[in-house]
């Protein structure tokens, strides 16, 4: 698949900054240096600045210390290898493919906090699916935010797919219902539902999300087959809570990590993987429909620590 083929190179471009941050830091940091408190502190600084999180960083550093005590790590270079190994091990062979229904429309529900990148990520997913020969329909369940329906509509026009929408301020679950009906009657392969941005702390809105879910489930067997949580890669430790609480309300099956093309180092992915078992399925690397790549942990970690430049 073309998508996968280009994954590695895109990761390298998209994560250029990440890599530079870590690699410059680590490369100037590690070779030839003894493993001592100062080196440990430098590693801690780099990990924290990459949003890896205090807890995960402490765990990694404890590991380095223990292996150093046991004589398994003796030089600065070994530490880099150790870190790579540990991080890759965080993502065993999770299922990172989109879950598609064997028959009938697949429903993908897309959620996340305000401004994370949901609507744009939907456009990207739509393009990926169309590239795989699937017919796609979009459901505009964000009936709240100003211009939200119009935004999705512009994408639908550009991508040449149908969109189901309701009244501004109307019940999003009703739009989801209509969209399911339309997708079934028109024998669409994949229905993607956009939802309004909501904070994971807003109970009524989280309940509304559960409701959309159950409405969809009643319409189409097994739906939603995929519930994607869009996370902003620049988000700090709060993204962990988002992952946990959106999962509680909507049984999230995958994460779409948007905006990884900035300088945010993406370390939050590591913390999220530690705290939840939800696989990261895609990453967003820009504002156009081409700016999407499947998440590949090996490529991610390699890109994170790649030599060169």
């Amino acid at each position, binding site marked *: 698949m073309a998508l996968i083929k280009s994954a590695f190179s895109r990761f390298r471009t998209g994560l250029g900054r990440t890599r530079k941050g870590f690699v410059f830091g680590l490369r100037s940091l590690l070779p030839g240096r003894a493993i001592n408190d100062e080196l440990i502190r430098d590693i801690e600084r780099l990990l924290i600045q990459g*949003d890896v999180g205090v807890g995960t960083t402490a765990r990694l550093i404890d590991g380095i210390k223990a292996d150093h005590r046991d004589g398994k790590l003796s030089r600065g270079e070994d530490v880099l290898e150790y870190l790579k190994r540990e991080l890759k091990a965080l993502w065993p062979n999770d299922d990172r493919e989109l879950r598609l229904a064997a028959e009938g429309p697949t429903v993908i529900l897309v959620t996340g906090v305000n*401004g994370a990148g949901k609507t744009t990520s939907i456009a990207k997913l739509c393009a990926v699916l169309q590239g795989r020969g699937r017919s796609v329909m979009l459901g505009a369940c964000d009936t709240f935010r100003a211009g939200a329906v119009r935004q999705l509509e512009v994408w639908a026009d550009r991508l040449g797919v149908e969109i189901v929408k309701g009244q501004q301020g109307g019940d999003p679950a009703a739009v989801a219902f209509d969209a399911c009906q339309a997708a079934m009657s028109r024998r669409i392969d994949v229905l993607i539902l956009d939802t309004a941005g909501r*904070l994971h702390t807003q109970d009524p809105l989280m309940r509304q999300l559960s409701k959309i879910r159950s409405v969809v489930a009643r319409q189409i067997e097994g739906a939603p087959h995929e519930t994607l949580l869009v996370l902003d890669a*620049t*988000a*700090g430790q*709060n993204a962990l*809570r988002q992952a946990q609480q959106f999962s509680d309300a909507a049984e999230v099956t995958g994460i779409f990590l948007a*905006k990884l093309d900035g300088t945010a*180092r993406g370390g939050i992915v590591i913390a999220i993987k530690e705290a939840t078992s939800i696989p990261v399925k895609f990453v967003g690397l820009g504002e156009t429909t081409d700016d999407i790549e499947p998440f590949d942990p090996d490529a991610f970690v390699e890109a994170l620590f790649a030599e060169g430049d």
Partner: protein
Amino acid sequence: MFDRLSDGFSGAFRKLSGRGSISEANVREAIDEVRTALLEADVHFDVVNDFCSAVVQDALGREITSSLKPGQEMIGIVHERLVELLGGSPEDGGREPGILHVSPGPTIVMMCGLQGSGKTTTCGKLAAYLKKRGRSVMLCAADLQRPAAVEQLETVAAQVADDAPGSATVSFYCEPDKVAEYGKAIGVAVKVCQHALQRARKDGIDTLILDTAGRLHVNDELMGELSRINRTLSPHQVFLVVDAMTGQDAVNSAKAFHERLEVDGVILTKFDSDTRGGAALSVRTVTGAPIRFIGVGEKMDALEEFYAERMAGRILGMGDVVTLVEKAQEQISEDEALKLQEKMAKGEMSMDDFLAQLRSLRKMGSMKQLLGMLPGVGQALRGADIDEKKFDGIEAMINSMTPAERTSPKRIDNSRRRRIASGAGTRQQQVGQLVKQFDMVSKMSRNMASMSMGDRVRAAKQLSAGGMGGLMPGLEGVPGIRTRGSTKASKGRFKPKRRRK
């Protein structure tokens, strides 16, 4: 939002205050916890380190080690430092509140920031803010690339024009024919902004607000476009809009925007989330620009002026007492509050008072949300599933008590317990538990007045550790908080004001 940060501080200071006098080593140990708390709150690594060494220096310089109440003194120092770092509050006189006004107008305000940070929404909020103050506003759609960005601002402008309080006009300027796909209209926004300015001049508009497209600070072309708008129109105020949930990267983006545009003020959005909001500290530190406003919701009135003291208070484990007091004032009259406070101090609080409080509290929001604002309670609540139904149960039990029982719950013996339980459709143990908790709470509230900050936090923790979190509203007795307020809050700096709804 700073709840977990507060927890970290509470932990550190409990250690200190538990020891009487402390040594240099103690200070350093405590500061380590502060450091962890700040890092977990997403304050940038370097900012944290600078902050901590400053506090240690300060603490040692003041011979805190010989102080009788080191915990309290340490809180004072950290608090002061935090307020300083956050840049003070409008009434400190350090800066003018609100939005600058120039004459002759129009005053030009430019928004900038990363994608999705909240620029367009905040344009609407600022327009509402100005409209209320009798200043006419024009919103200019300078985001020509994000799909429907123009329509979004147009809708927002119409909402504010129609619904927001005030009589000043709110108008909208756009050139929809200039809209293009991503990357295909870079630079066009400059002209659009110029045209908007001409129109605003002609119409005698007070303030022109430019809503620019979200962009990455490393995108040279798009940053160049912003610079050009900046050079061409010379906005009087450039606001950087930052998502309060941002992590360590807040430093990088804020620095880059500031270097290009000389940001005049920062607006932090999405503060209604539970982010610990370390970005506030980071951004303030790297730009040196004051934090002007915080966004606390999606609606047009969800904008508040920024108060460093409040924020610092929250960080210090004082909870968001001010917000709580404001909420309480909407529900509880001054009179009621005073009466109740007296009763509590004398230990005369009855089940009726408790019920009344519980009901008022429940009108203010979900219990979890409210309890989270209380000092020291944040941690106890983390992950806890607060069952709102439990409160229905409590109400039912109190309703099943006789007036005499409500005044002195001590007289509730086994047979009364049975009667109350069957009346409320619950079990006897439940009633027993309520009475026990109530007793503890009223004893506590009597003692609270004389407690130090550290003791209070400790007491709150003890209570919640005993599974009494559910009765915390009774314990903290919202109306009483104001007078028992902690270190700075009691000096009357927080003038509780009615909250706009």
